[in-house]
């Protein structure tokens, strides 16, 4: 079953707006949540990651908000730029686990 779920499947925002990408997970032992981004015809690459010791992680225009009780997190991209257009994958893993589980991705398009 899908242990990491993402929504929406696709999202279009105007340049300068804030894009919000959602992620939820099943396994309460997950304790590492990376977000990867993937540009067309390229491979995924790490964008930003959070561990549950905090409920927020910020890196420039990208911020992860984490809600452990609800097993949800979200990626906020402020002042979205056309260059942010990509597919974003939420992933999760446990320190005692074996590998990262990936969601099905959100395809973001930022329109100028």
């Amino acid at each position, binding site marked *: 079953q899908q242990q990491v779920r*993402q929504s929406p499947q696709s999202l279009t925002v105007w340049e300068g707006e804030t894009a919000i990408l959602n992620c939820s997970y099943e396994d309460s032992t997950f304790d590492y949540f990376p977000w990867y981004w993937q540009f067309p015809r390229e*491979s995924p690459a790490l964008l930003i990651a959070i561990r549950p010791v905090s409920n927020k992680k910020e890196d420039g225009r990208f911020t992860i908000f984490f809600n452990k009780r609800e097993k949800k997190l979200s990626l906020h991209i402020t002042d979205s730029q056309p260059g942010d257009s990509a597919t974003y994958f939420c992933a999760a*893993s446990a320190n005692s686990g*074996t*590998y*990262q*589980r990936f969601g099905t991705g959100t395809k973001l398009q930022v329109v100028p």
Partner: protein
Amino acid sequence: EAAVTQSPRNKVAVTGGKVTLSCNQTNNHNNMYWYRQDTGHGLRLIHYSYGAGSTEKGDIPDGYKASRPSQENFSLILELATPSQTSVYFCASGDVPNTEVFFGKGTRLTVV
């Protein structure tokens, strides 16, 4: 910077034929992974390895075998390729599950 190299980058195979996808990493990572990426399914793990000589089944191992003859090399083998195995395959490496995973550039496989 972490380096994961896949070969070939593109492959056309006939149904029933044998296909071997190769992956080499120069990061001295213990863990290596094979994912396939299909629209609507995100990244799904086929096989992974903890080190030379080890292979483990991921979430969708049926129809695939893996081989890890050395720390650097990890192969994915399709003994009897089928059209349903047409996909983009990514090899990746990582130190431990709860850290960044580094992806290769991918192999686009078409089975006709």
